[in-house]
């Protein structure tokens, strides 16, 4: 919970007019479609926010954030990490 995930800088983040976005991993040729909430989360994967911090910010932004949102955020971030789109910084 205290870990602060950070995006993989080689990932291409394409925002579209309708607030959806695409993440593209050029080394693998894979891509992910992001809805506006996922875009919000992605933008906070800056190594400064824990998943919990992101939830707090999300609640401020959208009033109808569901009670189990933390599970969704963790699931989404976990998926990004599994596919190499994000990770954690290691400090020696």
């Amino acid at each position, binding site marked *: 919970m205290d870990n602060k995930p950070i995006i993989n800088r080689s*990932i291409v983040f394409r*925002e579209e007019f309708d607030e959806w976005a*695409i993440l*593209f991993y*050029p080394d693998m040729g894979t891509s992910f479609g992001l809805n506006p909430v996922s875009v919000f989360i992605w933008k906070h994967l800056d190594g400064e926010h824990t998943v919990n911090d992101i939830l707090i910010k999300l609640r401020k932004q959208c009033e109808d954030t569901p009670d189990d949102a933390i599970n969704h955020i963790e699931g989404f971030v976990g998926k990004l990490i599994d596919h190499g789109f994000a990770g954690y910084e290691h400090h020696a």
Partner: protein
Amino acid sequence: MPDKPVRVTKTPKSLELAITNRCNLRCTYCSHFSSEGDTGEDLPLERWLSFFEELNQCAVMDVSIQGGEPFIRQDLTEIIDGIVKNRMRFSILTNGTLITDEMASFIKSTGRCDQIQVSIDGSTSEIHDTCRGKGNFLKSVDGLEILRKNGIPVTVRVTIHRHNVFDLENIAKFLLEDLNLPGFSTNSASYIGLCRQYAKEIQLTHEERYFAMTTLLKLSRKYNGRITGDAGPLSEVSMWMEMEAARKKRMKNLSGRGCLKGCRGVFNKIGVRSDGQMVPCIQMPHIALGQINHERLITVWQQHPALNELRRRMSISLDTFDFCKNCPYIAYCTGNCPALAYTITGMENHPSPDACLRKYLEEGGKLPDDGV
């Protein structure tokens, strides 16, 4: 239900880059060497490299490296390095004759190459070399083999014309059985670029077109869809048979038809000529949209009037053209490629006469039976 409007992306997803206007061959149906974009000037490396940084900021995902012949550029490795450094993937269109083992191994090492498309137009030197020049069949096949040996995904493009149309079965056997390629794509010599000078000797007659359509349908079934058609007889026959079936069934319309909807390229990609002019598509070099590194790509993409006009083309109904007057296929037709419409009629906003089913039938062309 009305068709959903096609949405324009914020920035182009892909670009076609003509990195050179030079080529070691002079194939008689090449789309270059007699068009507005053929200025003889190749942009220096540094100009491409700074443009790639802009592509990175615009989150462009991939580029198609084209020419001329891309492998003629001595600094191709630096160009590819620039593409890789700026987080893009790439593919290359080539005649295959200049590929070396060293270059292939470099391309493989980048891990970013989606595919290299090699043009092979015959099953023998005699046929391939008719339009591409003596000795080039063996060189192209060698190039293809070098790429495969290095583990690079390859595809072959067969351009169909009067000198190879009766060799299609052998070509399919050669590529799919002897070379064991996963597949190949087809198009045909069209009224663009150099081909306009040699149209009579090169472009298929209606009888040859019919022969090509029937043969390709048969072959694509025999080889389980390993033969595809982005343009030319195989793509035409599927479109035309669908239109004819709709007419026979008296269908009200077909989804996405009835207007000039033949080109979706302008909604997600843009081209750059070898002199650095941005163009809507490499096949429309006459519409110069602005020079790279001078005009911002995002501004051109979102605001250029000529580009937006091409996008609006989708809403021009075919029944507004005299050319289409009283045509029974209006509700099932897309008017096809604007680039071809332009080279034939001088207007992009016009159906392409070359892909007009009514004209083809009126001039004695036939469609294959459903059960080919």
